[in-house]
């Protein structure tokens, strides 16, 4: 019997090493782990603030020092921003299905806002595998953008400042005229991804999306993150094709306080 699954899901001790403030509501956290956790691009970990709560995050670096890029947007992230240096956090994972990167020669990554957190390691992996990568990075303000140096090293970055997504769509259309993308990868607010999904469909591009929903057990047993017959924590969070189209057109994200 695979009872080691119980051991594997215990929290690993983490200590906040540093918090680098990017702008008023975005920060990058370095967390020193007692034991390294591996996560492929697209997978997530569960971060626990003892006595407070637990939420899923996509690590932007893995290793003995795990890195998270976080936007302050609810009670949990507010609490996280307020943690002192050396504060204890628990980490378990990795969970979920990663992005598919096999045999990808050419790709377009589309990030909106903090959605870049789920995509930065993907850009690096694709480049490492020899793919030609374009990245469209949309944000409300340029100063909210993170990882530009890292991204510039591995792909061609097109920075876009916009409120919605018009410029992103026109950029994608222009790029698709000359490029032959195997995949479009996208992460951002749900309405943004919904529009990108529609555009990809009309351009005939295959796309993968990293979706978001409140996750509780992360193990596919409680059923709290069910969308249709899929469990977001186990079958996702990355979805592609018709399933992604359906989820995005109907909307699955529930905002929390």
């Amino acid at each position, binding site marked *: 019997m695979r009872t080691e699954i119980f051991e594997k899901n215990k929290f690993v001790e983490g200590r906040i090493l540093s918090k680098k403030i990017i702008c008023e509501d975005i920060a990058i956290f370095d967390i020193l782990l007692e034991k390294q956790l591996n996560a492929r691009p697209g997978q997530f970990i569960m971060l626990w603030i003892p006595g407070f709560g637990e939420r899923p995050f996509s690590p932007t670096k893995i290793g003995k020092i795990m890195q998270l890029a976080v936007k302050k947007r609810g009670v949990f992230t507010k609490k996280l921003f307020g943690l002192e240096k050396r504060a204890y956090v628990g980490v378990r994972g990795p969970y979920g299905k990663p992005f598919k990167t096999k045999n990808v020669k050419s790709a377009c990554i589309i990030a909106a806002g903090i959605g870049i957190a789920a995509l930065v390691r993907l850009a690096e992996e694709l480049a490492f595998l020899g793919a030609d990568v374009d990245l469209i990075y949309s944000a409300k303000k340029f100063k909210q953008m993170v990882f530009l140096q890292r991204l510039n090293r591995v792909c061609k970055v097109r920075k876009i400042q916009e409120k919605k997504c018009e410029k992103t769509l026109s950029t994608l259309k222009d790029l698709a005229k000359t490029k032959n993308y195997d995949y479009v990868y996208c992460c951002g607010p749900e309405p943004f991804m919904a529009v990108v999904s529609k555009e990809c469909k009309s351009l005939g591009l295959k796309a993968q999306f990293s979706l978001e929903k409140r996750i509780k057990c992360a193990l596919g047993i*409680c*059923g*709290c993150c069910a969308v249709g017959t899929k469990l977001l924590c186990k079958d996702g969070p990355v979805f592609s094709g018709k399933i992604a189209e359906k989820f995005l057109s109907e909307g699955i994200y529930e905002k929390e306080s």
Partner: protein
Amino acid sequence: MSEPLKTILCGIELHNPLILASGVLGLNKKTLLLAQNGGAGALTLKSITIEERIGHESPNVAFFEGGMLNAFGYNNCGLKKALNEFHDLSCFSVPVIGSCTAQTPEDFAKIVRAFDELDFAAIELPVSCPHTPGYGLLSKQNEKAFIEKVLRKCRKETKKPIFLKINACLPNLLEIATCAEKAGADAITCSNSFPGMIIDINAKKPVLSFKKGGVSGPAIRPMVVKAIYEIYEEIKIPIIGVGGVSTGEHAIELIMAGASAVGIATGVLLRGNSVFRKCAFEILSWMKKHQYKSIEELVGIAHRNF
């Protein structure tokens, strides 16, 4: 599924005795279907309450070498939405057991009355949750007087079989089982998860946000086997054994103690949604090896003198 595993539980025909226990994958029809596709002989809903409940703040699960601890706090969509969700059960080829819980006997009866209209094969009433204020062990629903009231009221509302889900950790277990039988329960589900706590020594805090939770998994199986063994000697109604089962051999152990059917919950985590099919296969292999033709022959066999 082969005939040797056919089980009749309170008149309900199951193609195998392995039931998806309440709490796992039971929030809606689509997730229940995952367990049906995994080979379950019957499916139990996650318990429905009158009003919608968000449940406890996460972490809702914690782990240790012997299993896991959970405290979800009866998160569910509430009776109104549940009636809508489970109105049409035609997508299921196996029996579906409605599970509901409430704070008062009157509210239990109210949900049972509503459930009676639907196509549930049976109704399960947990009075044994270890981690939700107002319910189960935290509200003394395990006391004889309360159980009697609940069963008498619910009995009037439905002719469907009623399963009472109790907790094997209770010292008055046998008294409760006997009283439930007298008050009209058709079967006893034993057991719910055991009250427990896990403290992260580096954080110096309980892991679960609710602090206390229910222990499940391999660690509780010996306690559940003993409880089933003892209850079997006291009552005539069937027992649905639940606790620490993830292989066919585990299921056989509970059946030999006296269980007519066996629930699986944490086992889904250990072996995936197809844990039911895997266990059924393992039971069949064991029966073949030991020349048993019907699973029924094994029920309570550990009590017999050879």
